[in-house]
């Protein structure tokens, strides 16, 4: 059964089917939000919000729309909505709020862990837009075509922006490494 078919069923009232969608997408959405916020506890909260919205606003799902694009759009909205309110607290400050490093404790060796910390710290310094592009295309391995569709733009545009983001990331990464 395709994601789209399941969502149609949910939309018609068969809520139990939403569990299937949860199983298929919760890890991806959680990782997306964790990489964007760099805060796993927050990512959990926001992921719950995403699925809450999927259920509550099920009627707004357009027939024939690609489910993956729809749910990612919900995730992006949840992310930016969250920072709208936190931003109001720090109204002086520009853009990205960084939250402490949360390294997955999977028994990786020290060098791997250090690299992961460097990577998190560096991605934290990117703009939201840049970080999002890298998370989607490089961490989550989404195709340029899928991202272009999600952001309603061209593949060429995405490619240029991703390149710039990688270049910026390199700068920050090796700056931090030298310290």
């Amino acid at each position, binding site marked *: 059964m395709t994601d789209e078919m399941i969502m149609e069923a949910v939309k018609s009232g068969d809520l139990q089917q939403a*569990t299937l969608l949860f199983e298929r997408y919760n890890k991806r959405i959680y990782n997306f939000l964790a990489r964007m916020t760099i805060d796993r506890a927050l990512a959990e909260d926001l992921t719950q919000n995403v699925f809450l919205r999927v259920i509550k606003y099920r009627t707004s799902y357009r027939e024939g729309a690609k489910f993956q694009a729809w749910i990612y759009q919900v995730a992006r909205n949840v992310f930016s909505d969250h920072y709208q309110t936190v931003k109001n607290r720090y109204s*002086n400050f520009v853009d990205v709020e*960084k939250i402490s490093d949360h390294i997955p404790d999977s028994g990786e060796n020290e060098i791997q862990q250090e690299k992961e910390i460097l990577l998190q710290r560096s991605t934290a310094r990117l703009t939201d837009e840049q970080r999002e592009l890298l998370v989607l295309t490089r961490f989550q391995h989404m195709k340029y075509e899928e991202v272009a569709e999600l952001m309603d733009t061209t593949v060429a545009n995405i490619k240029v922006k991703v390149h710039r983001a990688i270049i910026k990331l390199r700068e920050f990464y090796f700056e931090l490494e030298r310290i």
Partner: protein
Amino acid sequence: MDMDKQRLEGLIIDYIDDRLNTVDREMVEQELRTNTDARRLYNELKEVMRAMDESPVLDPPESLKRTFDNLISQELEVSRPAKTVLFHPAFYRVAAAVALLILGAGVGYWINKYNTQQEGMRQLAHEMEVTRRQLDSTKQLMLGMLDNEQSASQRIRGLNVALELPKADKEIVDALFKTLHNDSNTNVRLAALDALARFQEDSDVRRQLITSLSTQRDPMVQIKLIQLMVQMKEKAVIDDLRDLVDDDATMKAVKDEAHSGILKLS
């Protein structure tokens, strides 16, 4: 071959992704063979790209599934049609309603009491968690902004964030001192000093501030530092102040401040 940096960077990224046609690929390989800067660029880009590629996939916590299941249950409840109980004799209907009311009120009272307690505790734990997270986020925000080399005003804003922190940990204190000693911009250094002044109760901070007095060369910062010492009633610096007064290299304005400091502290 003369190639501008941005174009080269783009080509190298595509090369690493194996997206280049034969002609471009050979051109890049040639460049990498002959140009050491290009070679370094390649290695660095490859490293970050690999790091992103191989970055671990995180496991969502168990609670996520549980919460989702609750969500479904709740939503199902909401959309289920209400049951109706029919009592034919109107009398019994009224009596039953009254009985239910009394019973419901009694049970409701106890449930409410229990829930209120639970809710209160949940809220407290939640608030503490939110506060902890907000403190963490404040700290990282600050460190991130201090890193900004281009904009002095951005660094100053970062230091203003430090004013929101109730307590300084070692990482923050070190970052503040690093800024105090090394930043090229006087205003940023003064802002760092303001931030540090908040933590003057901390003995480690005090100690480092005293040491700063003898190493600091920026006159405006020196003056502010002296004033801070006086405010802190730090008699230990009297000898350092005397050194400043005696040193020819010290600016007059600083000497005057030091002199006044000695008098106030003695």
